[in-house]
């Protein structure tokens, strides 16, 4: 059943044609360029070309203090700025041996999970958009707006937050009424999830466009260094929030959540998620999309727990490090589970307040590397489906 859907039989070959898709193209998610070699409608070979958004982010990190570099991390994966801030802050904190207070930790967890939901909403909406369904995107954006409003309340910025800093968070404790607003948002979001499942996850056309397309085997996913929902969509239950470094995992120690991956053929059973369609194969576009939907749901539950823990915690907020704070000699590397995959920051200090080296391991970059492999032999119409399910952000790919 699954095999026969994969490709159509084409005994007649036509002349191959090179098509240059991008960097200005509606469905390449920014300035990615794809050079397609097509035989009629079938993509024989494909070459992603990147570098159109290279902004020397890593080098900039070696010229300014960590404090000043945080706004640059916002612009890596601009759809999940909080997670980028957190990754860099944790790396610097690990190097300096700084611990943050209990309440700061819960705030960090909450804003990062909120941003994970926001990022996954965009991913899910754009996946629909890439497959020609414009309406679900607007519903996703509507929910995301509420998250951005919450961010605006805590730090004044909506997308490029720079809220989480090495050493703590900015602007002290959460503003009055934020907790109630966040509670209200989570409730509303959990009520909207079934609608999104109805419009996207179990939509027959969308299932047919994603099922058995761009199948990524677990072995290949690991070999190419794919992480995040792309890895978990292939059935590897690996989530740094549980399997990462101590400095990161202890943030989530007292939180209950399931890793959104199919283990032994079944997804987490803590809630009733839509059934897996019969044509879907583990590792295809549909599964990657499905994992994101489950993760967004799980994140909402984490936020609910975080709000309870926040209320009970001591009102002590860790202040960010100063610009003049000296970074000790040595190096540190921390990978965190950003919405798009594992985001790694490598920092080297030399005793001044400026980092000697800063390097970034980008999740989208590694996930994109497998694109060529899994898209061979698909049709032109499947390219947006596969790219949408990999969910890259070019700011992060090019850095």
């Amino acid at each position: 059943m699954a095999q026969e859907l994969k490709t159509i039989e084409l005994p007649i070959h036509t002349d191959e044609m090179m098509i240059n898709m991008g960097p200005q193209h509606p469905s390449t998610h920014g300035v990615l360029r794809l050079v397609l070699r097509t035989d009629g409608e079938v993509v024989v070979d494909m070459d992603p070309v990147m570098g159109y958004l290279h902004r020397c982010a890593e080098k900039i990190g070696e010229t300014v203090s960590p404090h000043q570099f945080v706004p640059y991390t916002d612009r890596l994966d601009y759809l999940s700025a909080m997670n980028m801030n957190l990754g860099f802050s944790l790396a610097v904190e690990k190097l300096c041996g700084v611990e943050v207070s209990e309440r700061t930790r819960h705030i960090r967890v909450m804003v990062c999970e909120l941003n994970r939901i926001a990022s996954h909403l965009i991913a899910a909406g754009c996946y629909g958009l890439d497959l020609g369904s414009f309406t679900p995107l607007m519903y996703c954006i509507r929910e995301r707006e509420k998250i951005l409003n919450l961010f605006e309340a805590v730090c004044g910025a909506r997308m490029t937050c720079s809220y989480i800093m090495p050493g703590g968070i900015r602007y002290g404790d959460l503003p009055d009424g934020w907790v109630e607003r966040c509670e209200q948002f989570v409730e509303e979001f959990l009520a909207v999830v079934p609608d999104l499942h109805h419009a996207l996850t179990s939509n027959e056309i969308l299932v047919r466009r994603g099922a058995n397309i761009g199948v990524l085997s677990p072995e290949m996913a690991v070999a190419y260094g794919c992480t995040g929902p792309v890895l978990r969509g292939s059935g590897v239950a690996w989530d740094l929030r549980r399997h990462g470094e101590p400095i990161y995992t202890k943030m989530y120690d007292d939180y209950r959540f399931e890793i959104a991956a199919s283990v032994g053929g079944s997804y987490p059973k803590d809630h009733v998620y839509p059934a897996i369609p019969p044509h879907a194969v583990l590792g295809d576009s549909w599964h990657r999309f499905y994992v994101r939907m489950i993760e967004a749901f799980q994140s909402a539950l984490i936020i609910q727990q975080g709000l309870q823990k926040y209320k009970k915690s001591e009102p002590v907020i860790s202040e960010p490090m100063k610009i003049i704070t000296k970074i000790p000699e040595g190096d540190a590397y921390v990978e965190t589970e950003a919405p798009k995959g594992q985001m790694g920051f490598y920092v080297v200090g030399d005793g001044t307040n400026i980092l000697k080296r800063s390097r970034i391991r980008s999740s989208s970059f590694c996930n994109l590397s497998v694109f060529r492999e899994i898209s061979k032999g698909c049709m032109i119409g499947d390219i947006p489906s596969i790219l949408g399910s990999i969910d890259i952000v070019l700011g992060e790919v090019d850095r």
Partner: protein
Amino acid sequence: MKTWFVELVPPGWQWVMETIWAVVIAVIVIAIALLSVAIFNWLERKIAGRTQDRLGPHRVGGRFGWLQSPADGIKLLCKEDLVPTEADPILFRLAPYLGLTAAFTVFFVVPFADGWAAQQVNSAAFMALAILGMDVFGTVLAGLSSGSKYSLLGGMRAAAQMVSYEVPLGMCVVIPVMCFGTMDLNVIGEAQSGWFWHWGIFANPFMFVTFFVFLVCATAGCNRAPFDMAEAESELVAGFMTEYSGFRWAAFFMGEYTSMVVICGLGSILFLGGWNGPIPWTEWVWLSEHVHPALGWIGNCCGAIGFLAKIYILIAIMMWARWSLPRLRVDQVMTMCLKYCFPITAAMFLGAMLWMAAFPG
């Protein structure tokens, strides 16, 4: 009215009056078509807005933002008119108008009310299909002449898709033609007068199924989402019209909407009783030609409004589908046509034939 107008001059000169009459009708029909395009442009945006939990256009002015359409028109006319250097200069310029002309021409055989067709043709259903088939030339030519690979792919897709869907669409038209025993759309409309159960769609179970297949094929034949393979903005940027701008782009746009109006008009005559309302109220209030020609004229006006209302409802359904459903892949579109639509219509054709043999009259 036409006879009266033509007989104003001596017999040898009547061809002049015939020509003038034809031009007048043509202007009226094209005006209706263009007005519909403007209204549908606005309606599509409003329906899209409401589907997506937003308001739709309301900033340009006018009640409910109706000035959006004129504003769009002015914007398109003011845009730079580009012809790529790679493009074939003549075919590139010709292509938009081919599709537009084909769509407009079909209007001349569609009766808006009893006897209110610009040109009464006794094989109107056949002629409408034949001219609608010309529609694809504009799209394919645009794809070939643009000198862009996206356009070429779009044109290729359009050629495959629109020509394939002609077959089940033709079958869907043949079934009512067979049931009513005529190809004259006016006669088909008259045959459905009275209560709504006289409508073609309720004539027999096979016609009922055929109507829905017709709706699918009409959507695909007009290149509308979820079958908009030729445009497919997430794959081919804008498909066959990637290189078009300004008024030529607007011509494609008008062509698409006009062919939607025409094909929905065809559908409402063949299946939904054309100008006949669901209840025969015009008969009850003596708005009939048999009482007085003027009353018949008023009745016809009401019929024409009803006919337009049916077209609007059908098009609203097409828009609703467009904004709710994702796009199919190109092979899935062809599968749908060849594996589902065509066998179903063939079966319905056979069924309708047997039904007529079993229950004659």
